[in-house]
């Protein structure tokens, strides 16, 4: 999995590509951990347009990121889900935890101004 990060304060947009499974969650956790620690990442948009598979491992690492950001006042918006990924994402109930948007711009604009 490749992760590309853009930072337009105060929002970090992470562009993920490839498979988000047991073998790539470690990389995702390392990157997001460094961004939180070194770059003060709080508002996160996950662009999954190029992610063709998400396993329960990926969902678990997403939940871990959410749990890390929650006490810091952070939020996660998910954007550009493919149909098969959306099936898993919504089918596992994660749609109620992390709002999904059609694209990254919409996801970025949806952050409340007070945050």
């Amino acid at each position, binding site marked *: 999995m490749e992760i590309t990060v853009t930072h337009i304060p105060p929002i970090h947009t992470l562009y993920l590509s490839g498979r988000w499974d047991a073998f790539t969650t470690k990389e995702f956790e390392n990157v997001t951990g460094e961004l939180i620690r070194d770059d003060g990442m709080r508002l996160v948009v996950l662009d999954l347009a190029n992610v063709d598979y998400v396993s329960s491992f990926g*969902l*678990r690492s997403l*939940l871990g990121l959410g749990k890390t950001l929650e006490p810091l006042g952070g939020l996660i918006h998910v954007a550009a889900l493919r149909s098969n990924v959306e099936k898993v994402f919504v089918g*596992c*109930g994660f749609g109620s935890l992390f709002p999904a948007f059609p694209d990254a711009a919409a996801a970025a604009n949806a952050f409340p101004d007070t945050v």
Partner: protein
Amino acid sequence: MSGQSTSSSARIPYRSRLAVRFTLPLLAILAFFSGTMLILGYFHVREQAVAGTAAQIRQLAVFASFQEAYVRRWTEGGAAPVVRALEEAGPDRLYEYDTYRQRLEDAILAAMPAERGMLGITVYLEDTQGRRHAVRFRRGEEPLHFTPGEDAMRRAFLAVANNDGSWRTFVSESGVGKELTTRYYTPVNKRDFQGLPSRFGVLTVDVSMAWVAGRIRTISLTPETQVFFMDNEGAWTLPEAPGDGLASDLARLHRLMFAKQTGQTIVSREGKKYVVAYMPLGSGDLMFGMFIPEKDLFGDLDRTLLFFVMVGLFLFLFALLFLKRTANLILHPVHELSLEAKRLSVGDFSPAKAPPVSRSFSRPLAEQWPDEPTRLYNTATRLRVALGQRQKDLTLLAATRERLFGEIALAGKLQHTLRHGTQKVPDRFILAAELSPAGHIAHEAFDYFSREEGTGETLYCVTASVTAHGIPAALLMDRVLPLLHELLVSGMSPAEALENANTIILSYAPIDKKGLSPFVSVFVGALFAQDGTILWASAGKPPPYRIFIGSTASLPWSGDFPLGVQGESVYTNHTTTLRPGETLLLCGGRLTALLSPDGEAFGEERLLSLLTAATGTPAQLIESIRSACFAHVGSETPPEDIALVAVRWKGRYRASPGSDPEGYGGRQPPGGRQGGMQDGRRS
């Protein structure tokens, strides 16, 4: 040992290449070579010096020979008037200065050679009573004192006393400045009253050749080098030395010199050995020679050289001793290290004998600045302790590994037993199930069992997978299935069983540093044999597929969380009804995510086309799926667990008129339909 290694191409410091064992012989060879060259060089210089000096002496002798011949001719010719004047006047008139002496003086001066400036001329008369009468001294100088030549002079006087009055010569090295003097003498007669001649005395003319003596001194190597003249009667110019008269060597030298005229020989004199170079002077009745010491040629220089050689030898021996001690200091620890390494290599970790404390320091100093053996001993001790501990660790690790493998094998066996127990399947169902684990312990599993209720038999099918790896996750997996089994057997609906299982799992599941426990995705279905109705709930598990005569469809996603996400999760029961002969396939999402060696996913489309084309029994269906998966990944050991459960409902027990041909009929499932087993989301 660390992972560091030294390749053969690595540069080795030069100082490390020169081993001590090579240094000692190398230094010894160098010292021997240097000493040999020094000694040979000394002898070479000595030979060259002797040869050079001899050559110069020979050249000087030639000049002196010419000089002597010239003076001889002058004396024999020019001094004749002086002799006649003396004979005419007699000794009584020698001191009549104004008359006779002046005339004698004039005669002498007239007879002086033109080169007289280079010569010192002394003329005197010695009478028969041994009294000397000076006739003329060198101008401006005191009369010479003839100490060294006194005896030779006496012999010369006696020699000429009875001869025919011809001039004889004798050369002496005399005087303070050691001038070379050629002495000519002739008898002087007087006539008595009868006119008969009688011996009056001996007239002596000394011609000193100071320049020759000076030249000899400049070419003499050292003060120990002595130049001498010897006549054919054995008289010579060197002072008498004890034993000279008895020394056969000197007699041999005399014979040798006058026999060979020119040459070189070894002569002993005064207990020392000399190299004597000799050559004739003038007509050959006078020889010129030089004593060159065979030893101590350079005198003080030789002694200084000997001193330095001795000091150098001492230093060399001291250096050898010191080098040996240094080599021992270096090689001893290395030797001990090799022995220590041998002991360690065979697993002998017993403490080595402690090295002796250095005698050079007091004990506190030795402990503060330990010497090489002590440092090696300390290092070896640390190494031994570390290796001993490492060996214990490895032993423990091996035992742990063996135990873990045993436990894993046992766990796998238990898993297999749990999954593939001989569970009874109701007659109205055909069930096939297969698990293809990626390792010894699977993280995906299934369970099925039947339960007899009042309205008929119910078949429960459960598939589950855990989002973690390792034994704890596998153990969690193996606790979930029995837990759900118990909950379902107790009469709970699938949704109730999932809610309770979620609560229980969160109470003991391992929690990571983010506060997350492993997810467990579960599908629970209760299949009623009587009418083919399925009451199901899913906790994040991909929905099963329905396969019926060339068509395949999947049940909808439940939208409920996997177990372990949060504590208050709510799960919903769903109901669907199978048609007679319809097959329900339970599989995990990992099946469609399997990758080929080219990185291509197995994909849901490939699975759907496979299912749609399937016409055989559930067992054949599962086998075709597995074969397709194995072919896709190129191995019979898939990278992910593959759990497959296929259930086919045969149909009703008996057909009843007006019943729904598909068996749906809108009937409530028996038993569990009451109470908590309502279709729809639980509130």
